[in-house]
């Protein structure tokens, strides 16, 4: 069992077998709210991927170099959420000044990200699973890929669905959840591919 195989395993587990949206039920607010069009889904997905990976690395460093030496591990919830909120704020300020074009594309998604539960969940799971820095990075990247996949799939189906004739009581949220049911069944089939 090589190191590379271990990392592959973590990645596949995070992205598919334990998909963060369909199997672990995280980040459902944005899954329902941000998939009205493909552009929204891709923009949100890109922004979340960047923030999740960076926040995972930063929170790992904060935990190892601040919380553990001071023996205040029980403060991790407050410290992690504040770290993520500050990081998102800094990214927003930086993008506004330095890369205005990217800010216009990504800016509206950033305030929503601080309360995206997937990012905090990844930071906390890194601690409970006792990952090292490399493993934590791979895990957070895998989680984000799974999230982007879920958003893009649902946005694609919803774009088609808006032209379809659907029963009026199912219109809107009920249909979204029925579609999610079928996709989740498909993801259940991937359970066996990782350890």
């Amino acid at each position, binding site marked *: 069992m090589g190191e590379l195989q271990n990392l592959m395993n973590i990645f596949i587990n995070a992205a598919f077998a334990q998909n963060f949206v*369909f*199997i*672990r*039920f*995280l*980040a*459902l*607010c944005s899954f*329902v*709210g941000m998939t009205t069009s493909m552009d929204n889904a891709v923009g949100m997905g890109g922004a979340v991927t960047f923030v999740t990976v960076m926040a995972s690395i930063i929170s790992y460093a904060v935990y190892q170099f601040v919380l553990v030496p001071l023996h205040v591990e*029980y*403060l*991790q*919830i*407050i410290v992690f*959420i*504040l770290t993520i*909120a500050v990081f998102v704020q800094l990214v927003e300020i930086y993008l506004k000044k330095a890369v205005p074009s990217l800010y216009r594309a990504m800016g509206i998604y950033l305030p929503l990200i601080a*309360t*995206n*539960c997937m990012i*905090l*969940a990844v930071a*906390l*799971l890194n601690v*409970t699973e006792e990952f090292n820095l490399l493993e934590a990075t791979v895990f957070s990247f895998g989680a984000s890929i799974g999230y982007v996949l879920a958003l893009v799939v649902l946005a694609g189906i919803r774009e088609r669905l808006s032209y379809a004739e659907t029963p*009026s*009581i*199912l219109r*809107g*949220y*009920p*249909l*979204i*959840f*029925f579609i*999610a*049911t*079928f996709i*989740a*069944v498909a*993801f*259940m089939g991937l359970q066996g591919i990782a350890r």
Partner: protein
Amino acid sequence: MRNLIDILKNGILKENPVLIIMLGLCSILAVSTSVINALGMTLAYSFVLIGSEITISLMRNFIPKTLRVPIFIVVIGSFTTIMSLLLQTFLPDLNKALGIFIPLVVVNCIIIGRVEAFSSKRTVAESIFDALGMSLGYGVVIVSIGAIRELLGSGTLLGFQIFGLSYKPALFFILPPGAFLTIGVEIAILNKILSKPKKKEGSK
């Protein structure tokens, strides 16, 4: 007093945080595999919501406008930490079953939304009733989903056999897809009930 009752009712029906505003879905779907888990999650959630709303309402005249969001986060985070430590000590089994969703109460959109929209502007009494109403609204949804999933998925309610031993449980409802299906059906039924009086608008 009438006003307070209205605030309470508002949380359960008209502004039901889950089925109408579509917030806080993650914990609802993830831990509603049984009624016990659903009740435990409601308890944990109401503790944080009531505590935060009272605290923010007491401090509402001292919080500078520009710093309000970080202060809200610290208050909610503190109550979440207290609740998580209490559960670890007194109810370790429940804590294990709810898992990651205990610390994730801190990013529950309903709590920060209510604190920002309601208790940072209202009196303590109104805030308590708002928190109670919102907690009940959350509890009704999560417990009803938990009851349906437990009944169909393992043939029990609160651990008691309902359908008898010959019933073959539909494991589907305990697994993740079952949660999506159950909440989809619940929202569809609610839509049907709410759309009846104004039929013309709904049929366009």
